């Protein structure tokens, strides 16, 4: 046994695979997630209190996920910390001292703990990116992920006349979940035009077959939307939501390749809910706190946008910081199979597993295929640079502080406010409760010509902590597993194909 203590933050597809592989390599693992149950966004589970007899009915690949999560959570060398949030990472004085200290708030009521791992795997995932448009702050306008989380996670559907809009293949599972739950989906509105989608998806189709799990899944969504006669409108965007106190109608318009609106193409549709997603924003606060280098997104016309950055990793999923590994959506948006492959590589190497292990070659290959898939996604669904053309001077950019587009433009034009921090204080954009998680990428993009220095992901704490909690001294970690039986290293057990066959 390697005897190393590996802390894995995030129990989504990436984190769960990392824990599994680290255990297989003989490490002692602490797996931490702020949710009550493992699975992350992809394998979002129903609450225990629902006592679902067939939870797999709502999920792709449930059986192999279930097998893996039982194997990991029930492992004698694994401590599973549910409902636990990592709120800060504290770098040690010298990099030789290893990865940062991990500050955790655990359980309800929340207790403070500090972990001192030998290796740290960050697998904290991403959240929806939503570009602003007039009326996007009306109740009844949800992120696509929110609609998905409510439908899959607690069986609440957001409405009965719903439009799903934005860009990217993620719109399809969201529309499918809504249909499955009995909503009427009026249309899926995809801003990318047919040419861009074809360029991304149809060129070199053999690359896609390697991601069979993912594209097979996409085909099943497309078939389902077809059966329900849900139109998939490409080259259109929702440019306004209207209503008195909640969304009642939306305006869609034809957009060009750069997402500028074609005048006269506007169309009004009555809805009771709108679900929007323009891709994902990685949750970078922990990697940034650890001091990990970031890299700009590969490909796509959005390249160069300060909003599009991910954690930079090598082929072993190592970040630029010693002992810190990253996997899943924080390294690039490539879907669950790629997240699993990355996680398995990260966990195995973090645990000190043999670099010559044969399974590692297979995992590395499927990780690389995932990366190719991500590059295609970026190519097929780039965020068009002319989207600010949808905005009006009074459109809210920061939902928390209600900073308007006009105010952001004024500060971007002001030569005394080139420092993002100064601009932030002046406009208040990003100073509200969400700490710029939602508007940060947007503001960074709107100010791209002016800004210098720090990106939008610097946040002193990753999770809100109350003063009382901070004042209490941390408690020694209780549930940390003591290895009862000496472990014999096996092999990283993941074959990402496993998941797509069930």
């Amino acid at each position: 046994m390697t005897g190393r203590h590996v802390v894995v933050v995030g129990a989504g597809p990436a984190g769960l695979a990392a824990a599994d592989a680290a255990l297989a390599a003989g490490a002692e693992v602490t797996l931490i997630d702020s949710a009550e149950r493992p699975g992350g966004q992809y394998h979002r589970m129903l609450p225990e209190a629902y006592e679902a007899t067939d939870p797999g009915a709502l999920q792709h690949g449930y059986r192999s996920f279930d097998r893996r999560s039982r194997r990991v959570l029930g492992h004698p060398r694994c401590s599973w910390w549910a409902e636990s949030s990592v709120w800060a990472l504290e770098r040690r004085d010298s990099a030789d001292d290893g990865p940062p200290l991990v500050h955790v708030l655990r359980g309800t009521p929340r207790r403070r703990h500090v972990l001192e791992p030998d290796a740290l795997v960050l697998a904290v995932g991403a959240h929806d990116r939503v570009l602003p448009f007039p009326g996007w702050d009306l109740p009844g306008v949800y992120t696509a992920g929110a609609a998905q989380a409510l439908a899959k996670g607690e069986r609440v559907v957001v409405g009965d006349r719903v439009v799903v809009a934005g860009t990217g293949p993620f719109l399809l599972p969201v529309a499918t979940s809504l249909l499955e739950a009995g909503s009427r989906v009026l249309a899926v509105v995809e801003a990318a035009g047919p040419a861009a989608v074809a360029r991304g998806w149809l060129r070199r189709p053999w690359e896609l077959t390697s991601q069979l799990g993912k594209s097979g899944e996409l085909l099943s969504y497309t078939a389902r939307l077809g059966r329900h006669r849900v139109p998939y409108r490409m080259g259109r965007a929702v440019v306004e939501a209207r209503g008195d106190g909640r969304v009642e109608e939306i305006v869609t318009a034809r957009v060009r390749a750069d997402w500028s609106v074609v005048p006269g193409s506007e169309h009004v549709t009555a809805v009771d809910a709108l679900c929007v997603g323009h891709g994902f924003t990685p949750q970078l606060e922990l990697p940034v706190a650890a001091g990990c280098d970031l890299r700009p997104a590969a490909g796509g016309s959005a390249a160069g946008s300060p909003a599009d950055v991910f954690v930079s990793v090598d082929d072993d999923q190592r970040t630029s910081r010693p002992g810190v590994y990253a996997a899943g959506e924080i390294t690039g948006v490539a879907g669950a199979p790629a997240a699993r492959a990355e996680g398995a590589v990260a966990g195995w190497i973090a645990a000190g597993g043999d670099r010559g292990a044969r399974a590692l070659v297979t995992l590395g290959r499927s990780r690389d295929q995932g990366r190719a898939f991500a590059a295609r996604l970026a190519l097929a669904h780039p965020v068009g640079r002319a989207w600010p053309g949808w905005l009006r001077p009074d459109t809210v950019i920061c939902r928390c502080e209600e900073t308007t587009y006009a105010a952001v433009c004024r500060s971007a034009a002001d030569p005394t406010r080139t420092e993002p921090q100064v601009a932030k204080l002046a406009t208040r954009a990003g100073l509200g409760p969400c700490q710029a998680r939602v508007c940060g990428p947007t503001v960074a993009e709107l100010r791209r010509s002016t800004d210098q220095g720090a990106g939008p992901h610097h946040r002193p704490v990753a999770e809100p902590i109350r003063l009382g909690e901070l004042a209490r001294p941390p408690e020694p970690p209780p549930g940390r597993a003591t290895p009862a039986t000496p472990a014999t290293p096996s092999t990283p057990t993941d074959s990402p194909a496993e998941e797509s066959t069930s």
Partner: protein
Amino acid sequence: MSPRLVPAASDPAGRRERPLTITVDGEPLTGIAGQTVAGVLLAAGRPAWRRAPSGAPRGVFCGIGVCFDCLVTVNDERDVRACRRRARDGDAVTTQSRAQGDERDGRRAR
């Protein structure tokens, strides 16, 4: 129509429903065990419960604890994300507002 719960009888996941009651600003709302506070509010036909500084209504936006649009007070605990907190039978939920002059103005307590 408004947000609603998929009826248990037609749910392929085959789930059980155990009802619970919470109060929201004193008014009782029924939900089922396992729902989040936001889920109970939405399924009860309330798409919004918080006010932004201008007084504009806010409810659920991100659904996963990122945007903080959905903040409520639960049993005297302020600034709880309704989309992440499981409702417990008997919870007393108070709505919040950041609007100036609103008696529920969140900024005083910050």
